């Protein structure tokens, strides 16, 4: 069933065990692109590719929030030398559908005079990622 993104969720655990919700996040995006290796040979009618390695990267966005469990989690993750466990839900009412895996985080903050400061984070896999889709 199509669900609203309003109830999306981002969870993270720096110790890579049990992720908990990161507060004041309002967007996430994940990419699961697989490299395609060009194996085109003389005489082929068109270019030919074979799949290589899958890359898992993405972004997280939201408002800067000084409360515990909010933006500080992202910035601590950016400083960490070991990866945390990241869990991404399109909609919390379907909690069985999510992607998760170990990830390194980067962090940015954008503050301007006419709006609330926002944060953004890029993540990249630090281990195998899985998609859970239990009906």
């Amino acid at each position, binding site marked *: 069933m199509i669900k609203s993104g*309003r*109830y*999306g*969720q*981002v969870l993270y655990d720096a110790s890579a065990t049990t992720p*908990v*919700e990161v*507060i*004041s*996040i*309002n967007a996430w995006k994940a990419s699961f692109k697989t490299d395609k290796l060009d194996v085109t040979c003389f005489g082929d009618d068109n270019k030919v590719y074979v799949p290589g390695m899958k890359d898992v990267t993405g972004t997280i966005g*939201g*408002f800067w*929030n000084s*409360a515990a*469990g*909010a933006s500080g989690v992202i910035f601590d993750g950016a400083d960490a030398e070991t990866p945390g466990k990241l869990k991404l839900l399109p909609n*919390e*009412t379907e909690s069985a559908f999510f992607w998760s895996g170990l990830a390194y985080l980067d962090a940015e903050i954008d503050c301007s005079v006419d709006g*609330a400061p926002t944060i953004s984070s890029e993540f990249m896999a630090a281990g195998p990622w899985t998609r859970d889709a239990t009906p």
Partner: protein
Amino acid sequence: MMADTGAIDAAVLTRLASDPELLGYMPNGVYWGLAAQESLRYVIVTLATAADSAQFGQTAIEERDYMIEAVGCSTVNPAVHQAARRIHDLLQDQPLTIDGYGWMSTYRTEPIHYTDADDANQSIQWRHRGGFYRVQATPLRADAPRTPLVLTT
């Protein structure tokens, strides 16, 4: 419990209506939307625009732009300039106590200064001075993990 947006309106009105200096300039009082009949010196507050910003599952920020004017009739020599200055002192960058919210900012986005002729008597003028003021507030519950959403059927 959901934050009540009206609490932001109430905080602005309370700030203005409880100030003796402003009421000294505008003795007919501070009104929301429409002043009482026969008022000659008053402050009028109306909601010009409003917008909410979301975080996952809930409202993160409520932004409300108020048009706030000191209005005075020329027959009573109204101190609209002083009243507008006092409104600015009371609101500009001044924290508001808002039930259920955390205050973020209050600031003027545009000043107001114009004069109208009275509809019934063109020799009488109504002087308006004040500004558009933006209030940003965040519901306190936005600082806590959400209670899981329960869908009712």
